């Protein structure tokens, strides 16, 4: 499913063209703003086996910068930030596809171009022995982890094929 391109935000922003695993491309804009994870909350969403969002709790909707109607039915990569290395998502899908739980630090892109960091856990929803979808729960990461993964992901991005030298 091809997502519509993001609209340029009012603030200065960098433009990127993201190529998704399903072969679709999307133009996104990133500002320098980071939105703090809401204390005490969990961000919860579910996707079907095709990766399309079927459930979004209020914290997910609020942090995404999109309307609930825009999120439901959209692929979860609507939140993909260009700073995230491809290998992180490849590892996620390989892990949950094998029926296991995945943990990882993720930088998400909001609909307004700002970002937010999460510590994400994804579990397969097994019903009568069959994977019916996936639940993702995001918790607040420490600032030390955000700094560590910012550096690590920058290295991983730089090593990706086609990255600027």
């Amino acid at each position, binding site marked *: 499913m091809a997502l519509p391109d993001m609209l340029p935000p009012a603030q200065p922003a960098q433009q990127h063209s993201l190529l998704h695993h399903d072969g679709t491309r999307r133009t996104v804009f990133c500002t320098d703003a980071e939105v703090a994870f*809401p204390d005490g909350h969990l961000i919860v969403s579910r996707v079907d086996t095709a990766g399309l969002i079927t459930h979004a709790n*209020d914290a997910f909707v609020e942090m995404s910068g999109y309307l609930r109607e825009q999120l439901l039915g959209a692929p979860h990569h609507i939140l993909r930030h260009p700073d995230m290395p491809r290998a992180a998502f490849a590892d996620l899908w390989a892990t949950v596809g094998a029926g296991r739980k995945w943990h990882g630090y993720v930088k998400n892109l909001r609909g307004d171009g700002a970002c937010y960091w999460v510590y994400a856990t994804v579990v397969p929803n097994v*019903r009568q022995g069959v994977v019916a979808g996936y*639940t993702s729960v995001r918790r607040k990461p420490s600032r030390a982890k955000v700094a560590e993964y910012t550096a690590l992901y920058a290295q991983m991005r730089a090593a990706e094929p086609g990255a600027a030298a």
Partner: protein
Amino acid sequence: MTLNLLIAPDFAPERFGGWHMLNALLQQRSGLRLHLLMPASAHEQAELLAAGQVDLVYANPFDAAELIRQRGFSAFARPVGKADEMLIAAQAGSALRRVEDLRPGCRVAMADHRDVKLIGLRLLEAADLHEPDLQWQLCDSHQAAARRLIKGEADVAFFLAETFHALSRLTRSQLQVVIESALHDITHVMLAHARVAEQVPTLCATLTGVDSSHSSDREVLEALGMPGGFEAMQAEDAEFMVDLMDTLLD
């Protein structure tokens, strides 16, 4: 046939009478015979469940996960508007105002309450604090944890949020909230074992029919601290909660 109904031992002491009132009301209206089991601790609860005589359980979310996935129980009802939240408090006036103010070696007082501990540990991840980083002080009750905090014998205490808010005004005035969870999707659930599936529709209809718009019912629900009563819960709703709990285990 008498059905054994076990109530998880994490309710506030003042709710004890409410469970007996609800039990009497359910028996009167459903025609079912119910025997209330009210273990005093998680250990006693585990012994009762292991004996295999428990037919119905009002379970906390973490126990519900195991009972549903591994022990043949199914969820059929849950309280309305009563999510299980936890709260971390410090002594009033303490420099500990947010999770990030806590440091390794911090002394944590708490009652024996696995849900509270697990959710609390998830909240402390934002400060890079994990279970071995903390000095745990197990208390007999949430009230005892509050006393320890007030005396300065602990730096923070973990509470079931509902229990903290039910502490006396004087006690709460001597404490300050560091963080309170807002998970929303996690609740206690009423479970039935597969061997009593035939009785569940009657029991569920009776339980969800307890309605605070009737004065006698309102008295029972207020005694339970559940003014919204109970709502029916579908199997998929319970599975969703169990998946969510699974993400919080590590």
